[in-house]
């Protein structure tokens, strides 16, 4: 039986190993890591992730061999209560294998990169012990991400969904005892906590969607849900709307959309490979995956689709404007990520699932590339700074000031000192800006094309966002790599080692060629056809020269503008941003993220703290505990028992009576004690008297 199944389902039996391999790697490092060398730890973790990639490839092959048949592998039952039946079932179809390939592929590259990167990072922050912990967390992340994309039910997806949230928490707070500059601080752990809690808000929405789904659609299993949905949508459309909108809350949390995007920029507190892997390439795209996965629900309710698309588009534009005003190299990329996620969410919201997935994949390539290159830049500056500290001929003073290796105002002219990184960064930038023929061009164009056909508002918003994208990326390139070094560290920056640049080259190649996955020409819609197995409505649009032309023109214009502002006259040391003057307040807004965080703090966070303090201090403790219980209940009892009863009733009344009784007895005995004179004869006399009296009584008794 097992045999025949194995044949018909190809390598499906390997599906659980998607999770087991990373878990094994994690356990090896956890248990034996203490005795292993740094290199060994890193390679074990990378191998675990690589094994998961191999499994993904084999699964993808199996899916294609099965002609898109959905393949399921049940490992064990999970929750079976009453009608509720959730199993640990792995699902391989074209959509999930796509995600698996991206996650494990990019993941493996980043693992390898991290071997080199973390080696230097832990050295700079002088805590070598954390090297092992990093890879343990990274493997855990891969495992969780695999559960997320391979689960066959919403609840198994949710396990991964929360699990990656946990890993995100752990990795953002990886340097939990310092801030991004290495000073002792709560900053990083705060960022981690913020990310987790914000994600939990999203998960709350996901859970509610789940409850509604179960009671209205009767299951959590994808296919059963979709099957039931059609009828329910006909009878009670609000149910599907509610489910999809609750799900949108989850999407907003995980994929950093308005209004829950605020955690992602802070998440840059994590080490750079983490930013690349989790906060750019994989985890944050889980929301996009969720919507795509639920495409059959969203398709049923256009209202919800519209809301999703608008949220995505608004996020894309909003985040792009903030990116313009940032100085931290990673923060710019973070807002860029939010913006690009907005593109994807908008795409899947519009029903352009293939376009969304396409952009997800290419974005994973080029954004990972950008982040990792940024990491390389940061390390280069660290090295330069380190170099300075050791050859400190430049006169003490300014080395003691805290040096921020991520601040673009400290950079400049790195083109010469870090040429490899420069070129890699350029490729990433061009791909992100959507310049032909890089991957980003094809995927973004497909989204814009779809929007132009169906949702003009979205199209306009996204086009503006695309303009800003090219602009801030141009700004970054000019500020970082051109001009003159604005800090000694930048002047002494050193190129990174091959172990860091090699994965980048692979990613660069993918960023260039990634577009080939789904070229908008007849016969080249590879990804589209591949996903068609899973997604039933796939539009294969041909290239629209008008849309493509406009977007390319916008991007080029933006780059030229950025050159005019930042490239033509390079920034000098200490000079404020040239945009600050002309834009005034608007730029202050961009710089300060439009004060959204402050607003949230004022409206929600501080109020929550106030309320809970109030409840804890006043309501629960002072009122309920101290006043009601100790004062009123215990106090009344005490008063009754000590004052009213003891002091008054007992002492004054009852005691007085018995005291009196006692005194009377005392007096009586003092008097009668004289009778006891000790003379035996008088006792005898009284006995005699008694005898006489008793006899007399007997006589007189009738």
């Amino acid at each position, binding site marked *: 039986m097992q045999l025949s199944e194995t044949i018909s389902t190809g390598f499906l039996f390997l599906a659980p190993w998607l999770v087991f391999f990373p878990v094994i790697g994690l356990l090896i490092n956890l248990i034996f890591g203490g005795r292993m060398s740094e290199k060994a730890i890193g390679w074990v973790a990378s191998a675990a992730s690589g094994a998961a990639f191999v499994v993904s490839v084999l699964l993808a092959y199996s899916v294609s061999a099965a002609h898109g048949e959905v393949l399921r592998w049940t490992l*064990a*039952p*999970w*929750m*079976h*209560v*009453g*009608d*509720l039946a959730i199993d*640990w079932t792995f699902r391989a179809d074209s959509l999930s294998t796509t995600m698996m390939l991206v996650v494990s592929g990019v993941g493996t590259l980043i693992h390898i990169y991290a071997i080199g990167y973390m080696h230097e990072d832990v050295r700079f922050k002088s*805590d070598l*012990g954390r090297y092992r*912990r990093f890879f343990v967390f990274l493997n855990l992340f891969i495992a969780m991400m695999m559960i997320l994309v391979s689960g066959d039910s919403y*609840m198994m997806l*949710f*396990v991964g*969904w*929360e*699990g990656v949230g*946990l890993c995100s*928490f752990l990795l953002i*707070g990886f340097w*939990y*005892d*310092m801030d991004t500059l290495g000073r*002792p*601080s*709560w900053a*990083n*752990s*705060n960022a*981690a*906590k913020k990310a*987790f*809690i914000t994600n*939990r*808000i999203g*998960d*709350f929405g996901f*859970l*509610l969607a*789940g*409850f*509604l789904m*179960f*009671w209205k659609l009767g299951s959590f299993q994808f296919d059963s849900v979709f099957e039931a949905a059609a009828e329910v949508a006909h009878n009670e459309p609000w149910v599907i709307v509610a489910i999809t909108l609750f799900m949108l809350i989850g999407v907003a949390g995980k994929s950093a959309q308005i209004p829950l995007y605020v955690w992602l920029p802070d998440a840059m507190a994590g080490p750079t490979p983490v930013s690349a892997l989790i906060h750019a390439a994989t985890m944050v795209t889980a929301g996009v995956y969720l919507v795509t996965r639920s495409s059959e629900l969203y398709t049923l309710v256009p209202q919800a689709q519209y809301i999703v698309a608008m949220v995505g588009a608004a996020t894309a534009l909003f985040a792009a404007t903030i990116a313009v005003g940032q100085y931290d190299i990673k923060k710019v990329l973070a807002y860029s990520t939010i913006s690009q996620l907005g593109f994807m969410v908008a795409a899947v919201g519009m029903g352009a699932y293939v376009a969304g997935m396409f952009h997800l994949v290419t974005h994973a390539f080029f954004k990972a590339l950008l982040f990792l290159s940024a990491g390389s830049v940061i390390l280069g500056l660290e090295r330069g700074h380190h170099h300075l500290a050791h050859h400190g001929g430049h006169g003490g003073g300014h080395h003691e000031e805290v040096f921020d290796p991520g601040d673009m105002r400290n950079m400049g002219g790195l083109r010469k000192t870090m040429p490899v990184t420069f070129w890699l960064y350029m490729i990433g930038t061009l791909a992100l800006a959507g310049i032909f023929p890089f991957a980003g061009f094809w995927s973004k164009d497909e989204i814009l094309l779809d929007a132009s056909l169906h949702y003009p508002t979205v199209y306009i918003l996204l086009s503006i966002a695309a303009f800003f994208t090219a602009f801030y990326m141009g700004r970054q390139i000019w500020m970082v790599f051109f001009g003159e070094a604005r800090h000694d560290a930048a002047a002494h920056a050193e190129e990174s080692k091959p172990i860091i640049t090699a994965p980048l080259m692979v990613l660069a190649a993918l960023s260039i060629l990634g577009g080939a996955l789904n070229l908008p020409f007849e016969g080249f819609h590879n990804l589209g056809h591949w996903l068609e197995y899973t997604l039933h409505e796939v539009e294969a649009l041909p290239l629209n020269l008008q849309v493509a032309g406009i977007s390319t023109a916008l991007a080029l214009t933006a780059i030229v503008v950025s050159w005019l502002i930042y490239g033509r006259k390079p920034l000098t040391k200490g000079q404020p941003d040239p945009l600050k003057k002309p834009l005034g307040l608007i730029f202050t807004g961009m710089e300060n993220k439009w004060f959204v965080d402050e607003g949230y703090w004022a409206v929600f966070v501080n109020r*929550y*703290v106030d*309320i*809970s*303090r109030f*409840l*804890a*201090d006043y*309501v*629960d403790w002072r009122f*309920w*505990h101290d006043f*009601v*219980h100790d004062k009123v209940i215990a106090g009344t009892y005490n008063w009754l028992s000590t004052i009213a009863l003891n002091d008054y009733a007992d002492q004054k009344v009852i005691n007085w009576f018995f005291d009196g009784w006692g005194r009377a007895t005392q007096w009586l005995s003092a008097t009668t004690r004289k009778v006891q004179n000790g003379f035996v004869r008088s006792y005898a006399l009284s006995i005699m008297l008694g005898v006489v009296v008793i006899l007399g009584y007997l006589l007189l008794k009738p």
Partner: protein
Amino acid sequence: MNFFTEPLNLMLFFPLVGVLALLLIPSAQKNALRWTALVASLITFAISLWAFFFSGQYEAANPDLQLVAKFDWITVAGWNIQYHLGVDGLSILLVLLTTFLTPISILSTWTAVEERVKDFMIFFTLLEVGMLGVFMAQDLFLFYIFWEFTLVPMYFLIGIWGGPRRIYAAIKFFLYTMAGSILMLLAILWLGIEGKTFSVPLLIEQGGIPADIQWWLFLAFTAAFAIKVPMWPLHSWLPDAHVEAPTAGSVILAGVLLKMGTYGFLRFNIPLFPEATVKAAPWIALFATIGIIYGAAVSYAQSDVKKLVAYSSVSHLGFVMLGMFALNAQGISGAILQMINHGLSTGALFLLVGMIYEQTHTREIKVYGGLWKITPVFGSIMLIVALSSMGLPGLNGFVGEFTILLGAWGAGMEGGAFAPMGGVWWAGLSALGVIMAAIYILYMFQKMFLGPQGEIVDEVKKHGHPLRDLNWREIVTVLPLLIFIFWIGLYPAPFFDLMAPSVNKLVEALAAVAPMAMP
């Protein structure tokens, strides 16, 4: 007379053998005392495992009471009181939890309790007898005896080995519980006199209590159980008791004693008074929901880590109550599982807090910080336990909370228990508790283990005992809990299977009696 060959009798009274042995050991031989208590409780645990899984006498698929040990006890003057023990799917997990947590708690006192070790161990072992009795007794009178009996050892555990305000806490604990129990006693007497028997299965079978009287009886039982749970707003004794109790006391208090309240609802309130139960369900949901949110909010504002965990119990047990009164299979199963989960997670939290307290002698959260770096094993275990407590999927807390909320949501739909009032809002609002749990748990974890190194580290070092990581004994103490945290989280099927027949029977009985269609 084969009294002691009945598995339940053996299990229930075996700890008394331990007490006898403890009495014979001189007080000065502390280690001998500890080992004796530990071995006695471990044997009890082994007996429970044997009785339920290896003796072949317990059948998991049977929904009825099993391993019944019963004989007439007091039959004078028309009273019909029986000695009647039995276990079914509703109680088996709790019995196992009790026998499982007791040795762990004893192990945790190894170095924490140095004074009057003999008395401590005797009280602790007696406490186990009481708790097991509560979960096994099927006669109201017998139940009441065990119920009150547990107060005595706990009173002394808090009052002798507790913190600075222990006397206050112990008395408050005692009086609070007594106050509720008195009302329950009245209701028990009414049932015993009117029903001519104290036997719970018989009373359930007889049924037929008029609805208005059911309501009063329900309230009387609720008074006792709600205080024990504790349900908001009757929770005021809990923070005091937890803060002042010694670690092992807190573990058992959170792990088992609170479950006596929720178990009471499940065993007595719901089956005995089905109509009243249905009527009360939305109201209980109201209080449970308030408890969940209130407990979580108040928890966040605590500066004392033990108090934080104590208030989190209020929140967690709110979930249990919510699920139980959803009155459907998901809710009740989830509630039972959540009782176990809470015992494991909160028990583990108290254990861990106790372990650090033993070194630092402070529970102020703000003096900690950055401990993960100094005590990596401790930090990692704490993280897992904390995550389990906040309901991360894959760990035990999630399975319980999820099924509870799912059940509660179902109860809110038309025809469900909460439909008359509140509907799905109870589930929806309670789900906020999931967010709030993340807030206070992460706050606690962050302030203690993340961030820059706290002042306590140097403080402790100054006194010549720098902070150390967990030693082997401590790891062995927590490890069993961790195993179950993962087991229930990943593969809860065996646990659900144990309770499913009885839960289904209960739900069916409710659906038959109560004039409503169960979803």
